[in-house]
C-alpha cells in the first residue's frame, strides 16, 4: 500500500483531526505528526471520516502542534516486536525500554523512540531445521537460551502457506538483526528471517489448538488457592475500592504465583508501584528457578501521568507478549492493573469524538472490547503437543467502590473468577480483604470440592450468627452457636488472613496449605465442651495465638513441629471434657 500523507486540521488534547492529502488511509494504522520543533509524535488512526478526514489519537502530549502540521502515515498497524530479550525488561506502553530512555532524558520527553529489543546483544542460536525442510508461520527454526528457558525462534506467525528453507545459519552467536534463515514460497519468492518479528497488538494470535482451563495455578495466597482459585489459562476479575488492598495483592501474585512468566501491565496506575516491582524483583530469588525473580518478569509501564492514549496500547502490548510466550509452551500470567484506567482512556477519546455516551459516559462498545480482551487468555496445545497457557488477572477500580458500574459488570461477564475486595474487611485489617462470601471461582481448588463447601458453609454460618450477636448480644445466643461463630472467626484469622509482608506467612505452598487445612479441619471438627461465652472466647483466643505463632515458623523445622504439637494439645484439652467428668 502506498504510504499516505496529510495535514493537521484540528487539535483537541490527544485527539487530532487530519485531512489526507495523498494516498489511502487505513483505520488502525500508525501515523507520525511532524511538529515545528522537529519532533515526530506517534499516533494511531481511530476513525476515518468523509472528505478524506481522519481522527488520530496521539500517544504523546500535543502541545505546540499547529493546524497545517504534516502527517506521515505508515500503512502499518500498531505492532510489538517479539523475540528474545523481552524478559526482565521494563518498557512504556509503546514498547520503548524505560532504562534506555532514561539514558537520553530524565523526563519522558515526547518524540523519543528506542528499539524495543537490544540489537547488540548476541544470542546463541541452535538451528532445528536444515536446508530443504518445509515450514510455515509458527514453525520452529531453532532456539536460543533466554534467562530461564530455551526461547524458540519461530517463522513469523504472519506468514501463511508453505515455504522451503533455502538457507539456515550454523549454530553460534547472532543478534536479532542478523539474518538466520532464508525461505522461499512455491513461486520462488524469498524471505529473509531474523530472530525477531512484529505482530499487530490488537489482533489476537490464533490458537494452534485451544483447550479449557482446568488445572489450578497455585498463587501462594491461601484464600485464593483454597476458596477462589485461578487456573492456568483462566481469568479473574479483581475489583475493589481504593485502599482495600488491590496493589498488595497484585504484588503478592506477581511474586509468588507458580507461572513461568509474569507480565505486569501497569496501566494508568501509580508509577511508584511499578518502581517497587522493577527495583525489588532483581534482588529477589525465585525459589522455583533459583534465579532472579525479574528474569521471569516483563513490565509494561504506562503510568497515570503518562499520555492517556497509550494506555490502551499498553494493555494490548502486554497481552500480545503474553500470547507469544504461550506459543513458547510456557504458563504466562498477566496482571492488568487497572483495566478501569484503560476504559477511562477510551471514555476520554470517545467524549472528544462526540460519540453518544453509554452509562457513566463510557462508550457503548466498552463491554465488547473487555470481553475480547479476556478471550485472549486460554490454554493452547501447540503443534509439538506441548501445552502453554495465558492467564489474565484484571483489576478494576470501580468509581465509588460500587461494583454495579459498567467496567466491573462487563469484566464479570468475561472472567472465570471474581475476587471482590471489601472496604469493611480492610478496615478490620483482615487481609487479603477478599470478600469471603460474595467472591467465587469456577476453577478447581487445591482442596477437594467437599472441603471447599465445608469451609464456605462455616463462613456463612459465622456471618449469620455474627448478625444475631449484633442484634441480641452474646447472651442472646446459645453456647453451641457461639462455638460455631468462634470457629468461623478462627478459620478467618488463622487460615484466610495472611500477612503478605511476612517472609514465611506471605506465601503458602500447596503442601503447607494441605497441612494447615487439615489442622483447621481438625479444630473445627473437634467438639468443644466448655460453657460460658467468656470461657469459650478465651479457649479460642489461646488456639488462635498458638496457630498464628505456628504460621510464622518455617515448615520442616523443629520449632514448627513443636508448635504443631502444642496446638494439638490446646485443641484436645477442651474437647471430650464432658465425657471425662
Amino acid at each position: 500500500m502506498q504510504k499516505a500523507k496529510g495535514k493537521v486540521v484540528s487539535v483537541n488534547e490527544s485527539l487530532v483531526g487530519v485531512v489526507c492529502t495523498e494516498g489511502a488511509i487505513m483505520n488502525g494504522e500508525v501515523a507520525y505528526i511532524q511538529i515545528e520543533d522537529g519532533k515526530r509524535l506517534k499516533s494511531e488512526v481511530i476513525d476515518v471520516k468523509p472528505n478524506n478526514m481522519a481522527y488520530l489519537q496521539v500517544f504523546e502530549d500535543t502541545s505546540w502542534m499547529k493546524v497545517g502540521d504534516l502527517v506521515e502515515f505508515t500503512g502499518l498497524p500498531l505492532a510489538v516486536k517479539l523475540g528474545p530479550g523481552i524478559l526482565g525488561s521494563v518498557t512504556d506502553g509503546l514498547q520503548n525500554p524505560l532504562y534506555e530512555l532514561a539514558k537520553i532524558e530524565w523526563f519522558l520527553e515526547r518524540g523519543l523512540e528506542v528499539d524495543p529489543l537490544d540489537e547488540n546483544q548476541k544470542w546463541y542460536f541452535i538451528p532445528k531445521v536444515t536446508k530443504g525442510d518445509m515450514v510455515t508461520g509458527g514453525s520452529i527454526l531453532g532456539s536460543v537460551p533466554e534467562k530461564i528457558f530455551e526461547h524458540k525462534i519461530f517463522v513469523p506467525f504472519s506468514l501463511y502457506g508453505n515455504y522451503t528453507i533455502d538457507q539456515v545459519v550454523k549454530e553460534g552467536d547472532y543478534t536479532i538483526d542478523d539474518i538466520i534463515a532464508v525461505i522461499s514460497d512455491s513461486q520462488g519468492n524469498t524471505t529473509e528471517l531474523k530472530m525477531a518479528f512484529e505482530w499487530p497488538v490488537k489482533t489476537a494470535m490464533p490458537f494452534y489448538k485451544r483447550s479449557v482451563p482446568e488445572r489450578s495455578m497455585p498463587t501462594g495466597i491461601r484464600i485464593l488457592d483454597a476458596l477462589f482459585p485461578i487456573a492456568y489459562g483462566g481469568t479473574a476479575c479483581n475489583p475493589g475500592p481504593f485502599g482495600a488492598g488491590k496493589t498488595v495483592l497484585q504484588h503478592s501474585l506477581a511474586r509468588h504465583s507458580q507461572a513461568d512468566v509474569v507480565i505486569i501491565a501497569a496501566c494508568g496506575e501509580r508509577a511508584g508501584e511499578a518502581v517497587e516491582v522493577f527495583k525489588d524483583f532483581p534482588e529477589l530469588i525465585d525459589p522455583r528457578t533459583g534465579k532472579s525473580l525479574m528474569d521471569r518478569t516483563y513490565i509494561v509501564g504506562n503510568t497515570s501521568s503518562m499520555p492517556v492514549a497509550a494506555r490502551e496500547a499498553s494493555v494490548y502490548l502486554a497481552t500480545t507478549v503474553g500470547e507469544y510466550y504461550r506459543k513458547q509452551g510456557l504458563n504466562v500470567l498477566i496482571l492488568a492493573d487497572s483495566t478501569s484506567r484503560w476504559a477511562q482512556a477510551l471514555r476520554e477519546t470517545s467524549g472528544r469524538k462526540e460519540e453518544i455516551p453509554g452509562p457513566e459516559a463510557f462508550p457503548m462498545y466498552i463491554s465488547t472490547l473487555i470481553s475480547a480482551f479476556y478471550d485472549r487468555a486460554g490454554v493452547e496445545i501447540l503443534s509439538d503437543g506441548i501445552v502453554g497457557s495465558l492467564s489474565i488477572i484484571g483489576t478494576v477500580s470501580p468509581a465509588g467502590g460500587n461494583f454495579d458500574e459498567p467496567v466491573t459488570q462487563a469484566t464479570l461477564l468475561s472472567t472465570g473468577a471474581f475476587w471482590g475486595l471489601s472496604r469493611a474487611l480492610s478496615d478490620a485489617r483482615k487481609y487479603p480483604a477478599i470478600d469471603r462470601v460474595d467472591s467465587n471461582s469456577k476453577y478447581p481448588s487445591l482442596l477437594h470440592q467437599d472441603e471447599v463447601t465445608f469451609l464456605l458453609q462455616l463462613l456463612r454460618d459465622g456471618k449469620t450468627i455474627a448478625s444475631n450477636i449484633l442484634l441480641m448480644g452474646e447472651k442472646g445466643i446459645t453456647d453451641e452457636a457461639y462455638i460455631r461463630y468462634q470457629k468461623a472467626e478462627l478459620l478467618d484469622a488463622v487460615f484466610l488472613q495472611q500477612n503478605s509482608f511476612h517472609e514465611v506467612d506471605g506465601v503458602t505452598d500447596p503442601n503447607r496449605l494441605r497441612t494447615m487445612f487439615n489442622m483447621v479441619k481438625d479444630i473445627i471438627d473437634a467438639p468443644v465442651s466448655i460453657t460460658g461465652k467468656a470461657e469459650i472466647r478465651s479457649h479460642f483466643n489461646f488456639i488462635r495465638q498458638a496457630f498464628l505463632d505456628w504460621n510464622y515458623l518455617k515448615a520442616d523445622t523443629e520449632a514448627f513441629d513443636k508448635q504443631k504439637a502444642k496446638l494439638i494439645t490446646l485443641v484436645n484439652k477442651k474437647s471430650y471434657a464432658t465425657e471425662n467428668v
Partner: protein
Amino acid sequence: MLQKTYDNIDNIGRAILSVKARDVHNKELAEIIYPNGKKTFAQVIALNGEDVTLQLFGGGFGVSTDCKVRFLGKPLQVGFSEDMLGRVYSGNGQPIDGGPELLSDMVRAAGPSINPVKRLIPKEMIRTGVPMIDVFNTLVRSQKIPIFAKAGEPYNRLLANIATQTDADVIIIGGVGLKYDEFHYFRQQIEEAGSKSKTIMFVHTHRDSIVEGLMVPDLALAVAEQFALQGKNVFVLLSDMTQWSDYLRQVANAQDQIPANQGYPGDLYSQLASRYEKAADIDGAGSLTILGVTTMDDVTHPVPDNTGYITEGQFYMKDGYLELFGSLSRLKQQVNDKTRADHRSIMNAMARLLSEAEERVKAQKFGSVKDDYSLRLLDYRETFKRELMDPFRYLKLEDALDLCWDILSQHFKKEEVGLSSELIENYWPEKGKFKILREVNHE
C-alpha cells in the same frame, strides 16, 4: 518570533474565548489587550481550522469584541530562582506581596513526568510527631497524600503543622480557592514557625478567576520540581483540590465536553494524576512530597474517589480527630519495619481491636452489649480516641508506641490482643506501670 495580533473575537464565555487566527500553536500563551490598554493572559486549549479556543486567566467578564488577542509564541512558563523563597505569587505567576518582580530563568509548567526508572523506592520515614500518622499511617519522603475532610475541619492547621514540624528544605504552598483568612493563616503559621525563608506561596483566593486557580498546582509543582532536581527535599501543600476539580468541571462544561460522573469531565482522574504524580524521590537528586487537601462529605464523591486511586493513601479527618478507619498510608510498609520491632504488630493489633470495638458500637445501639469483654472494648475505644486521635498532640514515635502498649494492657489480657508471645514478653507493661498513659479520673 513575530507576534501576531488578531481582533476577530467570535465568542466570549465565562472562562473561554474563541477567535479566528492562523499559525497558532496548541497550548500557546496569549495576551488579551483591552481597548484601554489593560492586558490579561490566556492560553490556547483547542484548535479547529481557524477557530482558536482560549482559556482566559482573568475570566470572561469585561472582555469585549473589540479586545485584541496577541499570541506570544511561547508556552506557559513560570519563573524559578532561589530569590523566590519567602515570596507570595498569584495563580498567574505574578508577585502579590508588594515586592519587586524578579528576573529569573523561566521553566515550563506542566511538563512531562519523570521516567519511572529515575525514581527511587521511597524508604525514608518523615517524623511528624502526630501519633495517628507516625504510628498508624507513617508518612514517607516523596509520598503524595491528601487530607480528606469536611469543609471547616482544621485541615489547613494540620497541613501547616506537618510542613513546619518536619525537616523539609523548601515548602511550597499552592492555595486554590482559599478564603482570605485561610491565606492569612498560612502566612502567619509559616512566619511564626520561622519557616518563611524556605517557603514560597502560590495563592488563588475567591476573588481571582477560576483559570488562575487551575494554574496554581502546575506553577507550584514546576517550581518544586526544580528545587528537587537541585537536590532539595521539597514539601508541596495543595489546598484544596476539590475546589480545583470544581474549576476543571466549570471549564470542561464551558467547552461543551460530555460529562462523566456528577458533571466532572471524563479525564478528572488523569488530570489529578498528572499533578499528584509529580511527587517523586529522584535518583541522584532530591525529593518532592505532596500533602493535599480534598474537602468532601462523602468518600464516594468523584473527587475523593478519583484522588484515592491516585494518591498513596489519605488522612481522614473528622470532628477534629484523625480517624484510623478511612486513613491509609500506602508507603508505611516501606519504613515501619525499620523503626522498632513492635511497630507493625502493635499497629495491626490496635486496629483490629478498634474494629472489634466499632462493631460493638453498632450493637450498643440495640442495647445488646452487656458482656464484660464488649464493655472493655468500648472503654478501649474511648481511650484510643482521647489519647491517640488528636492531630495536634505531639508525641515522639517511640513514646506513641509505648502509649499503645499502655492502652492495651489497661484494657486487655495478654492473650486477647493477638500479638506474638515474643513481643508480649518484651513490651507488655508491668501491672499499673505505664510509661506514657496517665490515669484518667472517671468522676
